[in-house]
């Protein structure tokens, strides 16, 4: 079983469109949506949930009013301004609290606890394609984390092992932070989806420095490649210098938007046009891995 992660650095380059199209042209695979902050693979794959599990994220401070001695030290040291006393009692605003635990350390009365927060749910689902999807939904105000990504990937790998599947396709999140590091961890190949804008190139360089550090081989898809031939050429030069395979450059095409609006993949939207293209991309990737 091999794990392929699709990331972009910059958001909005067409990462999920590429992921969904690859889901259509591949077989013996399971999909995992690790872009939990803005999960959208489910819009296309239309999952029927088979199992669900509550997910617990970081901790938040809670003050026990019965034990509190109203000294106010917690309010003074809180770096996030999360502690106030609107009604004569010190209270923690859960939206502002970062769960650092400093207040608990200094509270002379031992009135502050740090319970784990339920931040959402993880799901394993059947989809309208013949593959399963592991995904998650966060509650309002909760954020994605390395922990949640690790959980989604672990469930996906387990499901793939149980079903003797060959591929785990992971839709990663933008950026280079903790969730992205966690999505790269243990991956066999990385598909970088970028676009010819300066921020597309810049974020590609940043996310590649992370990927390279992990020693994971990568290939790049330049989407909307004809919109800015100058920057496209810069991206091409970067890929050559870094020994990253250029898998495809796709011209700007409004089919991306049209397919997404209809909740289907490009391959389903116009099979004649897109099926051969993504089949070629998929075979390029699988060849790199065998």
């Amino acid at each position, binding site marked *: 079983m091999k794990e392929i992660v699709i990331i972009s650095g910059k958001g909005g380059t067409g990462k999920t469109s590429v992921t969904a199209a690859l889901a259509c042209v591949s077989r013996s695979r399971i999909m995992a949506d690790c872009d939990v902050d803005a999960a959208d693979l489910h819009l296309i794959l239309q999952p029927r949930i088979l199992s669900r599990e509550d997910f*617990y*994220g*970081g901790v938040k401070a809670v003050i026990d009013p019965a034990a509190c001695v109203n000294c106010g030290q917690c309010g003074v040291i809180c770096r996030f301004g999360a502690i106030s006393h609107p009604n004569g009692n010190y209270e923690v605003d859960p939206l502002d609290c970062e769960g650092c635990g400093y207040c608990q350390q200094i509270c002379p009365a031992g009135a502050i606890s740090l319970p*784990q927060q339920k931040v959402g749910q993880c799901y394993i689902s059947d989809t309208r394609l013949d593959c399963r999807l592991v995904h998650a939904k966060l509650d309002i105000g909760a954020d994605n*984390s*390395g*922990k*949640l990504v*690790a*959980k989604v990937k672990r469930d996906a790998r387990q499901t793939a092992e149980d079903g003797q599947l060959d591929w785990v396709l992971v839709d990663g999140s933008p950026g280079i932070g*903790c969730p992205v*590091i*966690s999505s*790269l*961890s*243990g*991956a066999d190949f990385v598909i970088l989806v970028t676009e010819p804008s300066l921020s597309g190139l810049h974020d590609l360089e940043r996310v590649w420095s*992370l990927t390279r*550090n*992990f*020693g*994971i081989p990568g290939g790049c898809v330049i989407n909307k490649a004809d919109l800015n031939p100058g920057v496209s050429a810069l991206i091409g030069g970067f890929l050559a210098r870094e020994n990253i395979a250029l898998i495809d450059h796709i011209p700007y095409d409004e089919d991306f938007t049209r397919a997404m609006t209809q909740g289907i993949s490009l391959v389903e939207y116009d099979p004649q046009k897109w099926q051969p293209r993504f089949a070629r991309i998929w075979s390029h990737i699988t060849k790199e891995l065998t």
Partner: protein
Amino acid sequence: MKIAFTATGTSWDATIDPRFGRTDYLVFYDEDKDELTSVDNREIVNVTHGAGPKTAQLIYDHAPQILITGNGPGGNAAAILNRTQLRIYLGAGGMTLRQAYTAYKENKLPQGG
């Protein structure tokens, strides 16, 4: 020489966990004593952020000279480990500990960090 492995189990037949921060176990092999010991790191699933630095701390506490792993530590963990004398060997993901140790002895693992 004391050698650390990131692993999915605790014996020579366990496979190398390619992940650093979120590895299930750290296994230590003391060549002088010919002794295999391990630390259960599975509690790390409860860590929301900063798994890498936490595991780096664990490595630091056990003071091995060599680390054999898969993808290698991320930026924050690497910044900590680079302050130590630890030498890091990568690319052992999926091998058994025994295979990885042999590959290291035969200079077949790329050095990272």
